């Protein structure tokens, strides 16, 4: 038997180390109550949105929609991804806080394996949650007599790409922010800013349309500024990319659909490599 080439052995060892970290972290998540509680909360919030649709139809007699289940899925993806990203931010930064990261990196684990292992653990957890969401959406479709669509399954698979961006970003912030508390504050603020711009844009557009504004109306200026900001944010925010991919899927605009998936995967890779780079640059101590 010929010995494996050094670079191949190096990557095999790396993969082994990453996989060990992944198993440990994902088991810890599966055996805790956190993910089940987080997903219950997200599905209950999604249920509010579904119930709103039911009440609307009851009062309005009819409801015209292309895919009424996409909004609850988006809500579920946002809540669970933020939860998982926060967990991974804390997990990674607390290893540094407690000094265990230094011990870990003395052994057969390097920065790349550490980041990849933690990332894969959260992706594995989300994949399991997406499976639950798939069951949930199918039961819901049957229960309410919605139109069954393979697009729901496709969108749940695509949501993996969006969630991978959020988790990778959480790890990037953990490496950048240093201590757990600082990293968590950074992550929360940046997430709120990105989501806030999108929400504010939606609200202001609605207000402007309901008025008859003049050129010099300050609300129009605010709307235009938010419009420009949102134009940038929509390419940064994985939630916007997921929403755009959902619409492209319904419209059967496949080039746009794959473009949005590509953007999300590209972002995830950039944040992961950025995390590894920051870890190597900043070291294992605060």
């Amino acid at each position: 038997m010929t010995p494996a080439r050094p670079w191949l052995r190096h990557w095999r060892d790396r993969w082994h180390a990453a996989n060990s970290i992944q198993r440990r972290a994902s088991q810890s998540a599966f055996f805790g109550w956190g993910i089940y509680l987080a997903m219950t909360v997200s599905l209950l919030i999604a249920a509010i949105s579904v119930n709103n649709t039911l009440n609307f139809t009851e009062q309005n007699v009819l409801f015209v929609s292309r895919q009424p289940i996409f909004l609850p899925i988006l809500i579920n993806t946002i809540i669970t991804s933020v939860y998982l990203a926060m967990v991974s931010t804390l997990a990674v930064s607390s290893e540094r806080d407690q000094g265990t990261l230094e011990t870990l990196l003395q052994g057969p684990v390097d920065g790349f394996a550490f980041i990849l292992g933690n990332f894969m653990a959260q992706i594995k957890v989300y994949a399991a949650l997406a499976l639950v969401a798939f069951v949930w959406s199918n039961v819901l479709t049957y229960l309410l007599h919605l139109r069954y669509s393979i697009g729901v399954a496709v969108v749940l698979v695509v949501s993996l790409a969006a969630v991978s961006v959020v988790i990778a970003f959480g790890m990037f912030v953990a490496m950048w922010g240093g201590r757990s508390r600082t990293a968590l504050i950074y992550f929360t603020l940046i997430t709120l800013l990105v989501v806030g711009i999108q929400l504010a844009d939606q609200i202001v557009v609605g207000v402007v349309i309901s008025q008859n504004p003049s050129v010099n109306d300050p609300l129009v200026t605010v709307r235009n500024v938010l419009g420009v900001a949102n134009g940038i944010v929509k390419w940064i925010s994985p939630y916007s990319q997921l929403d755009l991919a959902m619409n492209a899927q319904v419209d059967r605009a496949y080039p746009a659909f794959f473009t949005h998936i590509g953007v999300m995967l590209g972002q995830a890779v950039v944040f992961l490599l950025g995390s590894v780079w920051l870890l190597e640059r900043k070291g294992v101590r605060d």
Partner: protein
Amino acid sequence: MRPPQRLALLLSILISGLATAVVGHAQTEPREDVFVYATTVFDGLAYSSAMTPPDVDTIYMIADRQNIIAPRRTMIYYWPITNRYLADWALLNEVVDGELEIYQGSELARSVPLTDYVIQYDGANPLETLNIGIGEEALRMRAAFDELFEAYRQALFEYYDAEQAYRAALDEIISNSEPGTVDPEDLPVRPEPVGDFSLQSTEPNKAYPVSLPEGRYEILMRDSNGIVVPDSRRELVVFARLQSGIAYSIVPQSRWTQPEDSVFPEGVVYVEPGATLYLQPSRESLFNELYYTRMLDPQDQTAREDRTRWVLHDPFPNTRLRVTGFDGTVREVSLKGYFVQQTAGSGLGYEVLEFNPESMDRSSFEGFAVQLDGQNPFYRVELLDEAGRLLLGSRREIRILNTDRGAQVYALGLLPLVIGAVVAAVRRRQIRQVDTRTAG
């Protein structure tokens, strides 16, 4: 102050107040003599007109359609109620003579001279009959229209004369005969009424007709001396429609004044069980929201370039609706008129009746009626043309939504907790087994 003086003072205050009030009523916004572009553009169905004041720097129009640009001098004023600059055409309305130059980048793409144009269409089917004549053709079209209208007028006179003669002959027969003795064969033949004249035409007007492919351009006016007219430079955005299809305005029987539009091809309409819907199909086009809105209203501030807008055009003529139920039943529904009758009593209420021309003035609305019975959980509707062919993009699914299952939706949200409990139980059992093994 003595009483007569006080009275005089009061009167003077009253008079001056009244005078101010009168002046206030007569006040008009100040007018300004400016250069504007008046546009007559194809909006997807017919032609619409708009005015682009000097502070609006971009004009929008649909690609590969004949559109009209008319540079004019006019008096404009700001109208605060609608937040718009308006033109007082009656005060000043001068077409600017010269050449309209269209640039793409720095290249002169086209130079358009002042030309006659006429727009004509049949009011019964504007989209398929819309025609615009340019130059000599415009004058020929107008002459042909005048001829047709004259012939129609002549036919109308002849019809009235014939109708008068018919009534006179009828009166004479009735007055000279005993009741019940007139042979129907002896009665005069009633003249056929002349149909409506539905052809519409503008007068020949002078402007600059433009038909351009999709793209961004710059326009300016050069007067007869070759000098650029001040304030005449504008951006010109020529855009195409993004998609076309068939939309349905859906009128629920219980809210007949508030239809909902189903614009997406292959879309789904969810309804309450037992509802009756009236479907009104129409052609539709998808445009960039900003481009389309600003084309019709250059001063609009609400539309955005990153959004799209479905525009509903004319109702689809000569079609039938095929309704297929879940149980396989197929029926074809034809377009009918419906009359909304208020119910008696002090409370609000109405009923929708099929229009009967003999007992009702005119129909309140038209549509294809679809009664959703309890036998079918869903229906498929699609439009058929005169030859019975399916019209692409007209298919919709109508599903009865189980609106009474809200509590079950919440209960379903507890699914992860159930899974968590199962995982925890399995884990506890595994730990117990390990503990037992270790103790053993």
